């Protein structure tokens, strides 16, 4: 009886350990394209995880933005909604070259504790991130369900972005293929949290949804 219990415990431990070893627990191992994409991302991630820097993995299958270092998840943020311009251009490692400016407060010598530090609340909620590869990621905030004014404001901004895209498409007479774009909608808190976590030159990887 005791032997059976030990055997069962051993089997459960081994099983859970095996699952821990998998980089993407939500991966459908029978889907060729999904496994291919996961493998591609892992090959890129291994290069990043081998170095002492934090990086971002945007998982469009798991709908999560991960801040990682050495393969360890440091923080994650759920994605409510996303849309993509060109799938092909999302591969590879993207280096952040431009992010929203944060207004830093200047210390006035001799004023001591009166000076307010910056905090998460000072971070932007709706912003664009530009990468060396030409990729642009637009981070848009998700309006709170009970806040009509916020919902209208965010919808207005989204419409304005569409107008801009549409007019640029008219100018070129076809969708732009030179640069990729990804729009992710996250909660206001997570948009600010992401803005806080990003540093210049930070690497970003994207795991594409194989079903698209």
């Amino acid at each position, binding site marked *: 009886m005791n032997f059976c219990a030990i055997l069962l415990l051993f089997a459960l431990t081994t099983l859970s350990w095996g699952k821990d070893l998998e980089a993407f627990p939500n991966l459908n191992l029978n889907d060729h394209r999904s*496994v*291919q994409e996961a493998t591609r991302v*892992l090959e890129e991630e291994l290069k990043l995880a081998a170095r002492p*820097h*934090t990086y971002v993995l945007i998982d469009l299958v798991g709908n999560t933005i991960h801040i990682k*270092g050495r393969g360890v998840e440091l923080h994650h943020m759920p994605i409510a909604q996303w849309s993509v311009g060109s799938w092909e251009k999302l591969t590879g490692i993207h280096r952040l070259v431009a992010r929203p400016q944060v207004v830093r407060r200047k210390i006035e*010598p001799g004023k001591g504790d009166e000076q307010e530090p*910056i905090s998460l609340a000072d971070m932007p909620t709706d912003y664009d991130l530009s990468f060396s590869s030409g990729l642009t990621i637009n981070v848009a905030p998700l309006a709170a369900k009970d806040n009509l004014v916020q919902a209208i404001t965010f919808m207005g901004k989204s419409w304005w972005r569409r107008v801009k895209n549409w007019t640029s498409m008219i100018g070129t007479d076809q969708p732009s293929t030179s640069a990729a774009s990804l729009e992710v909608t996250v909660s206001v808190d997570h948009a600010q949290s992401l803005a806080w976590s990003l540093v210049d030159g930070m690497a970003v990887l994207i795991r594409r949804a194989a079903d698209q």
Partner: protein
Amino acid sequence: MGRVLLACAAVTFLLVLIATAPDTRPVISASSQVVHRPVVQDGPGLRALQARYKTLSKQLFQLKPSQPYILVDTARNRLYVKHQGEVVLDAIASTGSGTILDKPGDDSSQWIFDTPRGEFLVQSKLTKPTWIKPDWAFIEEGLGVPKNAAERAEQGVLGDYALGFGKGYFIHGTLYTRLLGKNVTHGCIRLNDTDLKGVYTLARVGTPIMIF
């Protein structure tokens, strides 16, 4: 007047048309993402891919720290000691204020009081540390920078222990425990006495510190 009204109506109509036009990009809602293709057996190609995926997953797993590591969330001012995915210690911290201070006599140069992000290692472990006040500490207080090095030494302000992680940054104690949980430091990471002792006990020289 009639022409103006007609023009306004035309512009409004155009804007409504643009705003309601379908976006050319697919919009994916997070809730609709659990879509897997039907199970397909793709023969040796899929099996080779699965094997490659498992090998890469294992390689990524091996890059994760096998010893306890320190994780610092500068946005929420929390410090964790983690070991094999489990939180061993959870502490409220104070991290960099993000403020700036002009360097005297230099028009363009500034100090930026951020906690550095990325991966670091515990380089030193000190007991009863003495704070050697840098230039900015005097300038911030509106004082002149002393020429005598002995005038920079200050006892008892860093707590009982300090863990150095390079370039003058330390995890140390504080007299201002009411400010824990806020971004108020010049880049160092402050803890209360109990948590500081815990971190000092758990960490060794070489323990990784991941900061985001």
